[in-house]
């Protein structure tokens, strides 16, 4: 079976959807965070496939950037979650409703 662009994109879509589902459904902040990473990587996969099949390097360059930014984001995000946990003794989103009026 020939593996084409479509297959990669389908996988990327499935990964993205799983990540989105996780973000929307899961209660634990840490898991939501991991799901977010999943979504990012789904996007990366799509970019790399486009790059590969179109014989252009733009997509791969963009992926490098995304990985870098994601690393920085992880550092900040995890620190925030830890700080939040210390303050609230909980990492569940139901407990974080102080933005409601």
């Amino acid at each position, binding site marked *: 079976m020939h593996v084409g662009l479509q297959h990669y994109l389908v996988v990327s879509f499935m990964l993205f959807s799983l990540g989105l589902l996780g*973000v*929307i459904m899961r209660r634990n902040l840490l898991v939501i965070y991991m799901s977010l990473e999943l979504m990012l990587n789904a996007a990366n996969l799509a970019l790399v496939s486009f790059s590969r099949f179109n014989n252009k390097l733009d997509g791969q360059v963009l992926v490098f950037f995304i990985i870098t930014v994601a690393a920085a984001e992880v550092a900040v995000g995890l620190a925030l979650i830890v700080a939040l946990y210390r303050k609230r003794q909980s990492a569940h989103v*139901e407990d974080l*409703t102080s*933005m*409601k009026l």
Partner: protein
Amino acid sequence: MKLEVLPWIILFLPLLAATVITLFTLRCRTTSALISIGAIVTGFILTIAFIGANGFHPAVSETAVNWLSIGGLQIDFGLKLDALSLMMLLIVTGVGGAIHIYSFGYMHEDKGMARFFAFMSLFTFSMLGVVLANNFLMMFIFWELVGVSSYLLIGFWFEKPSAGDAAKKAFITNRLGDFGFLLGILAVWAFLGSLNFSALQDRIIEHKNSANTIGFFLTRFPLGDFSFDMNMTIIGLLLFCGAVGKSAQFPLHVWLPDAMEGPTPVSALIHAATMVAAGVYMLCRVLFLLNADALHVIAYIGGFTALLAALIAVQQNDIKRILAYSTLSQLGYMVMAVGLSGPTPAMFHLTTHAFFKALLFLGAGSVIHGLHEEQDIWKMGGLKKKMPVTFWTFIIGTLALSGVPPFSGFYSKDSILAQALNTKNYLLFAVAVFVAALTTFYMFRLFFVAFLGEARTEKAKHAHESPKVMTLPLIALAVFAVIGGFIGITNNYGSQFFVEHEPLSVAQQALEPLHNIFPMLLGISAVAVGLFAAFTLYKNAATDPLPAKLGGLATAMKNRFYFDELYEATVIRAHDFIAAVADWIDRWIIEGACIGLVRGGTDLTGRALRLAQTGNLQTYAFLFVLGVALLLYFVLGK
């Protein structure tokens, strides 16, 4: 120094005094009083100096600076100096000065004395402005200033609710009249195209001399396309509205008796010498604008007021209220005289009235002061020995007001009676004679009850004479109340208000009433009848015998013919009703429907939108994704 400067100084000295007192010396009572007294006395001396140098007909009869010029309208800030205004200037500064000095004694124990004198000076300034104004606009401004300062003075003891109410009543009633006055001024401007008195007079004369009236009108008259005479009648009546308010003529007479709530010197100043005289003065000033129809109305209103007020005065028991109604009645006389096209008798009576009414008010103030704020005449009695100066000056004032020869009131009243007879208005002549009898009756009723007989209360037994600073002005005014009639106010100065006249000697002047022997005899017999009636009824009377004899009429007189109640039931009720309707509209339609709808709508939308704000992070994320998906669908999907 040029003499034309003097009137300006006279005008602005009291304003300066009021300003200095208000800004700097409110804490020093005596200094404030002296500043105020100094200002008006200096004004009096300067007035005499000016008249001494120029006579009553100065060569320069107007001194003005240009104030406004809008389009074709030129308005000066100027002073008119003729016999009329100079005579008034003498009265205002002279009688006003006596009252200022008297106040120094009367108000000595009042802690607001500095404030009092500031108001007095402000009032004097306003009144001088009315007298000296050379155009309608300036007169109106000062006219309103008189209203404001009288409001301040009547409500001087503002801790008393009655004083506050009286001040409000005076101000609002005056505003009613002033509204007509302002309309009249606007009509004058629209119709005759000027506000300057001299220019207006020229135009009227010009009109009388030329049969052709077309091209004369500056603009079409706002009230409609009437004939010249009709327009002048309307203008005259509108201007008269102002006098009705200020000079307290029927139907706006109700404020004056209530204004007795102010300190007694204020009553003397406002109700004798100045404020109420402003209306009569204004009518004399603009007499050339009043045509026969307007004068007719003026005469009858004046006559009616004179009669009405005299009847009410007969049954009052408060010494100041009797004098207040007497003032109303005498003002009715003056207005009637103006209406009978006799400005000279009117101004003559105004002058003598200023002397003797100020004297009577100050005398009443002295009595009230000596009896520790007692005003009911039935609680006085036997004051002759205890207050000799007050007693003798008061009897002079009473004789002058009653019109007993040779006191000043006799001459001025006689000239009004003669005027009524000469213009063949027999009804008003009869009214005037009857009012003369009533005047004598109520004044001697007051005199017999308050001053003669036995002391009726403890307060009256322990009465004491007032200090010199209060009795000296009384004596000065008493002198003028005696001689005011024959020193020649009418003929040497008075007739010259409008016509040049040969000066008469004092002897000729004293015999002047003999020229009209019939009104003189009737006047004197009216006085005799009034005096006799008062003597029989009130000599040694312990209580008032009149209510038993007159029954319902006496009750009506005592209750001021129920005018206050009538106004309460009609005008005030109607006003309250309109106010209630306006309140309802404001509360339910504007506030309720308009504002409420907008507010309620916003509130409801806000509540609905608030439901979307759950605070749940994942809902937001879901909605966000949904939004992105929709966006992508609309951008790319189609």
